[in-house]
């Protein structure tokens, strides 16, 4: 009975409570890259203004396990039909076919009985191979710990009968935590409701991607608009072909060597030389 989260972006107000609640519960620091140090006053000073709507944290990182995106869609005349400000809170999706977990050479990344994918901090060696292996750009190296860190789906909370910290804090219920099957039923109902209200482009994201996502989304526009890839290939799916072609290359070279070294000297000659 995997647990997960349903993120209904249609009722996200972009307040970022999830970002802070996540840091609070998980004891995450501010993202060091967002600050410079003021030597006179002896304190960090935030310098991460981006000009990208109200998004200043920009991305998920080892210190930012949640990230709220802001998408402004306004026509020049700002007619209501073409005036939208979309918000969406992003995190690790706890893929059923998880690129990071597949790539992990040490067994540090594990999936628990509740379906969440989490990094055992005492096992990870910081090889960073999981980082480019995540098709969603979630997992990241913490310079402080030398290990990779990401959302654990609040592993401690969910294994003690609680929901995730972000879902709990979310003022509007845009993030809800529960059993994936139940959440999907709710998501289907909400999608039908929105379609009925004329949101023709509304769609659910995460039913099929990467073997199904335990954290999935309702979007009002195409997933790409929210920065989510519309076709996801878990890298390890390509491993057999990639390996095979490499082996073919090796065989070709083997053949080349065989030909090269044989042409100039026969076994008989060798025998002679040896004698």
């Amino acid at each position: 009975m995997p647990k997960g989260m349903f993120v209904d972006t249609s009722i996200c107000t972009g307040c970022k409570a999830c970002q802070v609640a996540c840091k609070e519960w998980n004891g995450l620091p501010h993202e060091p890259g967002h600050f410079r140090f003021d030597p006179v006053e002896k304190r960090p000073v935030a310098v991460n203004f981006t000009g990208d709507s109200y998004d200043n944290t920009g991305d998920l990182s080892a210190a930012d396990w949640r990230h709220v995106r802001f998408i402004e869609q306004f026509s020049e005349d700002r007619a209501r039909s073409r005036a939208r400000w979309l918000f969406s809170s992003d995190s690790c999706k706890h893929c059923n076919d998880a690129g990071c977990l597949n790539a992990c050479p040490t067994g540090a990344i594990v999936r628990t009985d509740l379906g969440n994918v989490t990094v055992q901090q005492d096992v990870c060696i910081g090889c960073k191979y999981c980082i480019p292996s995540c098709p969603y750009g979630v997992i990241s190296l913490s310079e402080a710990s030398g290990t990779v860190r990401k959302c654990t789906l609040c592993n401690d909370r969910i294994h003690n009968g609680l929901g995730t910290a972000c879902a709990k804090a979310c003022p509007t219920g845009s993030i809800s935590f529960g059993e994936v099957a139940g959440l999907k039923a709710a998501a289907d109902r909400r999608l039908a409701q929105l379609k009925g209200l004329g949101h023709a482009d509304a769609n659910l994201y995460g039913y099929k991607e990467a073997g199904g996502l335990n954290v999935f989304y309702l979007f009002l526009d195409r997933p790409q608009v929210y920065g989510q890839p519309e076709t996801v290939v878990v890298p390890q799916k390509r491993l057999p072909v990639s390996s095979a072609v490499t082996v073919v290359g090796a065989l070709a070279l083997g053949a080349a060597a065989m030909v090269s070294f044989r042409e100039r000297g026969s076994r008989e000659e060798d025998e002679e030389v040896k004698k």
Partner: protein
Amino acid sequence: MIMGSNMAECHPVAFRWPLKAKTEHGAVLMHVDPRFTRTSAMCDVHAPIRAGTDIVFLGAIINHVIHSKRWNTDPFFRQYVVNYTNAATLISPEFKDTEDLDGVYSGLSPDGKAYANATWAYQRETPPAPAVKTAATYTDLLLQKVPGRPKTDPTLRNPRTVFRILERHYSRYTPEMVEKICGCPKETFLKVAETLLSNSGADRTSNITYAVGWTQHTVGVQIIRTAAVLQALLGNIGRPGGGVLALRGHATIQGSTDIATLYHSLPGYLNMPDARKAHDTLKDFILTEAVPLSTSYWGNYPKFAVSYFKAQFGDAATKENDYGYDYHPKITGDHSHMPMFVDMAAGKIKGLLVMGQNPAVGGQNARFQRKALAKLDWMVVRDFFETETSAFWRNSPEIRSGELKASEIKTEVFFLPAAALPEMEGTFTNTQRLIQAHDKAVDPPDDARSDTWFSFHLGRRLKELYKDSASPRDWAMRNLLWDYGPDAAEVAGFRIKDEPSAYKILKEINGYGWEDRKPLPTFAVLKEDGSTACGAWIYTGVIPEEGKNRAKSRKGDDWISPNWGFAWPANRHIMYNRASADPSGKPWSEKKKLVYWDPAADSGTKDPGGKPVLGKWVAPSGEGIDFMPTKAPAFKGKDNGIGFDWLSGNDAFIMRSDGKAWLFAPAGLVDGPLPAHYEPYESPVNNPLYRQQANPVAKVWKVEGNAYHKVADPAYPIVISTYRLTEHHLSGTMSRWLPWLAELMPELFCEISPELASEKGIANGGTVTIRTARGEVEARALVTRRMRPFLVDGKTVHEIGLPWHWGWQGTARGDIVNNLSALVGDPNVSIHEGKVFTCDLRAGKKGGRG
């Protein structure tokens, strides 16, 4: 309808509920605001209006409503309005409206700076014969001065009725005028008006929610009045789902207004004794304040006032010494925030206690306020972090620029570390009047102490210093009731043993019998003879019996939650909820049932024959009933009574002297009985409605360092609005020092429309400088179509927005936006006009074109 508020951003958790109403019950959410904000994004309708034109928009809805078919045919509206509002009341024939006088009302003084409100009065019957001949008590005095009942015309045909005056007053507030003045498309306006109208009635209610987007104007009070008038006309007051909801900004800003640390008010909304009024003795004070209100529940004013003084001076407060009234200070003018700093700058104020406030950032014309701080002899700041206010002498912009020199600032500054909320026990009153307790979890670290600790121990030391004085000026200090030391059990387990008892203080606020020291269960038992002491009568009932603190009730339910906290007064969550039933006492509809008359219920009293008297008001939800519990709907009030005796069974508005909601305010406001549109004090356009440009009685301070811009000033052509964000709190002391919040909104930015940006050569993310006659600030440009230019009367008006949370301290820094704003305010309550003024904008850094 959300207007004058950015609810989703500034009150995100409260916004949970309207959003639920939308997704689960199909409610229509509308946002009227100059900017497209996170609130607009969640609403079905966004009506953009030029800042400061709210009264035009709301007035036009009033005009639309009262001429609409629905309002004139659905009997609900007529029944509600005639019975529960003063629509039918006749106004003095001398009253002249703004339509008659081109923008001002009758009664304006020859210098145009103040109104006399005599001509705004009701027409009344002859006063009744007094019920008492001799006056032994303050109540008797009130009984001798009961005015005649207001004259009415329930048909509303008389041109002197409030309704006809209102109708004429708003007749030029048309959809076309909205388009012309507000810059809002007519169709959008009509959609808003129609939605409100169609969602009001017997089985539907509409709510209007506002915040400081309405208050921070020179017409702030009148904007809110306009909404109240509209809601009264739509029958949306006193009913579930209706009302005009204020979203306030600080954790207990409501509590600090109820138990006022405000110059003009005593706890419980009693006025501060005022040397400008006939307040020479306690009797004068009571008569001056209570006579105009005696036919409402304020008829109990003497009890509230005497019990207040008893709570201040205890045994020393006697009937003979007017309960210590003579030793209580009187105000002599406007001592509010802005004049406080004007007087400070003039050297009149020598010492300042700053408690959890940061005027160096949050004060209007902040540069002026910071420079005023340098004139003090001493200042005490209590806070968590080294606020800009506490550090003004060290590293403020004025020090850095050399304008001020630390060596020349003679101010002695104390920084006292404050306890954080989990480090002390106490109560907060939220924006719904709900008193909630927070318990002490841990001791504050090191020398940090609770605020109550500070004031209590400062008082204790001062009492010690004054204990041998015989001077009358020290009488109040000597006799001040100051017994809040903790019981051993209250501090058990904590390091700090001299923390005053929050319970004892709250018990005094609640009130108790002077002899038995037992808490009072309700303000109905207060006495005017000194036998009860009560700090703030409206809070009575929060400690109904010894040891029981209802602020600590923590049992919620799905609706009213009467057992979660305590909503003053008397746990009433929806004020004037008698209006949720029709005049005959029946619920308006099953769907909107809240409080109603149950004729079969046992009232708890017996008739002379010993049979139980049947009939009382009931509320199955557990809601406190805001009415006389057994007064039948058909009851006729006593003409020569006061308080509840005077009010009839359908006078739902029990705090009003006529028991009605006031569409027209014959008293209580200094700038007119009806709201009229005035342009902001600084505006790029002339008032298209009246010759009178701005509020004639607005408060202005023409002092050095506080220059104002002219109307349509070519040097300052752009409208600016200041506001807040979800990610920060006010002046930033509680958010900019938290890296978790600092990184969410790191720097000051300025929201600019692409149209204006291209006109000024501004690139997104670049630096811009905003200038007014008061100061200059630098900000990062956020170019966005969420901002738009307004077409006002054929002229393009550009508007920019600046969130104002930043200062030079903390972990998120930026220029202080209030360096731009001016000291100019609403005449009723002296709140400043921060939501709209004018400025100039250019690309580049301050002082250069870099």
